[in-house]
Every structure is written in C-alpha cells, then in structure tokens.
C-alpha cells in the first residue's frame, strides 16, 4: 500500500481520453444503427416496423451490463475473442442504436405530415423526400435530445470497466487497489465525469429552450 500522489491524479486525468474515445466510437456506431432503426420504424410496412420495434424493446428492456457481457463472452464463444475496447464499442453501439433510433423516430414523426404530402404531390421519390424535406427538419428537432443522450452514453462507458477496459472508472479502481483510499479516488473520478457531462447537459437544455422559442408563435 502506498499513499496517493499527484501522479495518480494525472493517471486519472489521462484515462479520461479513453472515456472520450469510447464515447465517440459508440456514438458513431450507435448513430449508424440508430439512423437505420429510425427509418425502419417509420417504414410503410408493418412487419418492418414491428421488427425495428422488437430491436428497441430488446435493448431498452434489458440491462446494458448484460448486453456487454454477451458481446464480450459471445465473441469468445464464436472463436473470435475481441479486445475489450472493441467489444465495449460494439455493445454500446447496439444499445445506443436503440435509444437514438427511438429519439430520431420521434423527430421524424414530429415533422408535419403535410410536408411529406406536399413533397409527394410534387412527384419526389422516397429518398429525395427524406433527404431534402423530412430529415433537414427532423434534425433540428433531434439536436437537443441527441445531445442529452450523449450524457447517458458517456456515463454508460463506465461499464466497460467491468470488462477490464482501462477507462476512467477502471483507472479509479486500479488506483484504489494500490492506495486503498476509495473516497478521494472515486470522488475525483465522479468529478471528472461531471466535468465531461455537465457541459453537455447545459448545451442540451439551451438547445431545447431555443427550439421551444422557435416553435412557439
């Protein structure tokens, strides 16, 4: 056992970049899956909508920790053991895809129906309607809740620690194991997460207020 020193703090601070990197990778993957899920959810075919709905129910109705376990151990079982970072990215992306898909479905559906009808009357194709008419408007509506979800994603990356990936939380555990000073170590870890998440929370709140002002008339 040794005492806490400045080097430990620096170690935690440097571990933050892995938290950020994991969050960004998961947001990229989750964004791709979420976009697909959102489009499937607003499809005109009921079977397709149902399938996407099942995906959302599956990932929103079970704990993220177990989803990560399944990816981690499942890849092992398939004979392609994945490094913890990759397994965590895949697991977080699958999960984020369900939540982002649901957020973006709501945004697409809150674009007035008449917009779509007008575009159809003008003879535009589905792809053009989506790309030129619906999505640009939906994206504006989606910004605030998407930034809000980012907070959840950053917090969720802490679960990668359970699989042994050394990001902020795992770094805290390692230092605690060496120094056995849990309170200062984990309090520092919590403050670092707060510093990552709080600006996003504030940004999301501001965007929401601006949206509310823009639509109120």
């Amino acid at each position, binding site marked *: 056992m040794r005492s806490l020193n400045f080097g430990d703090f620096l170690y935690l601070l440097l571990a933050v970049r892995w938290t950020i990197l994991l969050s960004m990778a998961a947001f990229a993957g989750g964004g791709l899956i979420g976009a697909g899920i959102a489009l499937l959810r607003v499809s005109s075919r009921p079977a397709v909508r149902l399938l996407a709905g099942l995906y959302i129910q599956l990932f929103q109705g079970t704990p993220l920790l177990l989803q990560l376990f*399944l990816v981690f151990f499942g890849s092992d079982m398939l004979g392609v053991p994945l490094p913890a970072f990759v397994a965590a990215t895949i697991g977080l992306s699958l999960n984020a895809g369900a939540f982002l898909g649901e957020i973006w479905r709501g945004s697409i559906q809150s674009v007035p129906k008449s917009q779509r009808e007008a575009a159809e009357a003008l003879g535009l194709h589905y792809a053009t309607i989506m790309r030129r008419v619906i999505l640009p408007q939906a994206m504006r509506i989606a910004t605030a809740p998407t930034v809000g979800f980012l907070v959840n994603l950053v917090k*969720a990356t802490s679960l990668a620690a359970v699989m042994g990936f050394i990001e902020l939380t795992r770094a805290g555990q390692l230092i605690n194991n060496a120094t056995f000073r849990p*309170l200062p170590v*984990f309090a520092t870890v919590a403050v670092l997460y707060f510093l990552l998440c709080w600006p996003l929370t504030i940004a999301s709140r501001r965007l929401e207020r601006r949206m509310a002002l823009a639509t109120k008339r």
Partner: protein
Amino acid sequence: MDYSFHFTDVWIARDELLDGAWLTIRLSALSMVLSLIVAVFGAFARSSGPKWLQGVVAAYVEFIRNTPFLVQVFVIFFGLPAFGIRLDANTGALIAMVLNGSAYTIEIVRAGIEAISHGQVEAAYALGLHRLQAFRKIVLPQALRAVFAPLCSQFILLMLNSSIVSVISADELTAAAQDIQSRTFRSFEVYIVTIGIYLVLSVGFSVVFGMLNRLCFPKLEAR
C-alpha cells in the same frame, strides 16, 4: 462455429437465478417507492422551499444525473466506511439505487408540479387551504397523474440499472448469473437466460404500472 450449447448447467442452477430475480424485484420495488417519497419532498423543496434549500436540491440532482451509477455505487459502498459506516452489500445497493433514482424522479415530479396552472393553487388558497394542504390535495395528485408515464419509464431504467450493483456482490440476478458463470464456464448460456429474465421483468413491471395507472387515476368520466 463449432460450439455446442449446454443449458443443463443453467437449468441445474435455476433456483439461484430465481432467487436473484426475486431480490432484483424486491430491491427495485423498494427503491422505486423510496425514490418517489424522496422525490415528492425534493420536488416540493425545489419548487417552493427557501432559496438555499432549492440550491441544495438542484446541486444534488445535477451531480447525480451527470455521473455514472457505477461510480456512485463505488463511492457509497467503498467510501462510506471511511466515516465508520459499514454497509452490507444489499443495503449499500439499496442506498445507491434510492440516491440515484430520486435525483431523476425529483426532476420528473417537479416538471409535473410546474405543469399545474397557478390558478388552481390560488383557488385552493381562496378556499382556505394551507400551502401544504394545497400541495398535498390539489397539486400533487394532478402532477403525479401528468407524469405517470415518464415516471414509469424511469423506474424501469432503475430496475435495469440494479444489475450494476452486482459489482459489489449484492446477490441480485446479475450477481447470481456471474456466480453460476464462474462455476460452470457456460457464460453465453447463463447470460442469455439472464437477459431473458430481465426482459420478462421489465415487461412485467410495465404491465403492473399500467394496472396501477388505471387503479390510481381512473379516466375522468365524460360529463
């Protein structure tokens, strides 16, 4: 892929999983009830308490909502013994879940309170009700009715989050699964079954919430 599934080991350990699931249910239900109680007081303090108390509640809500549950569990379970408070794993888990759950619930209940038009409160005062009476009899029931749906989704998230307390080996469902996994090495089978149980639990909880909704807030009769 040349892997053969063996669910026999999981079937043999089914009692452990069911015990774990039962603890997950009790832990979740208890922390939902306690969170709601804390949230009602918290939301009241946040919306009509003295300025300093409003600040304290707001800081608490912001800090909990912007840090991961896993880290909160570590602070509570490993940090509190520094003050001479020793907790067994299940109590530590409950405290962490209530502290976490109530921060989210306070925000939801507060939104409900703020949605009630001020005219109603003024009418209650005009009828001679005290501030507390007006809150309890007029504002709170309507606020809870208004936010019942987001409250329920938050509670289901709380139940799913309870899997995280397995890291301090509270013996709920995920910890039971890990136990079986480390004994049988049938990780995939164990976790698939466990995820299925969680899915049943979250569907089950939403069914119960639906019934509660109809019981507590019957549809207003058309007049």
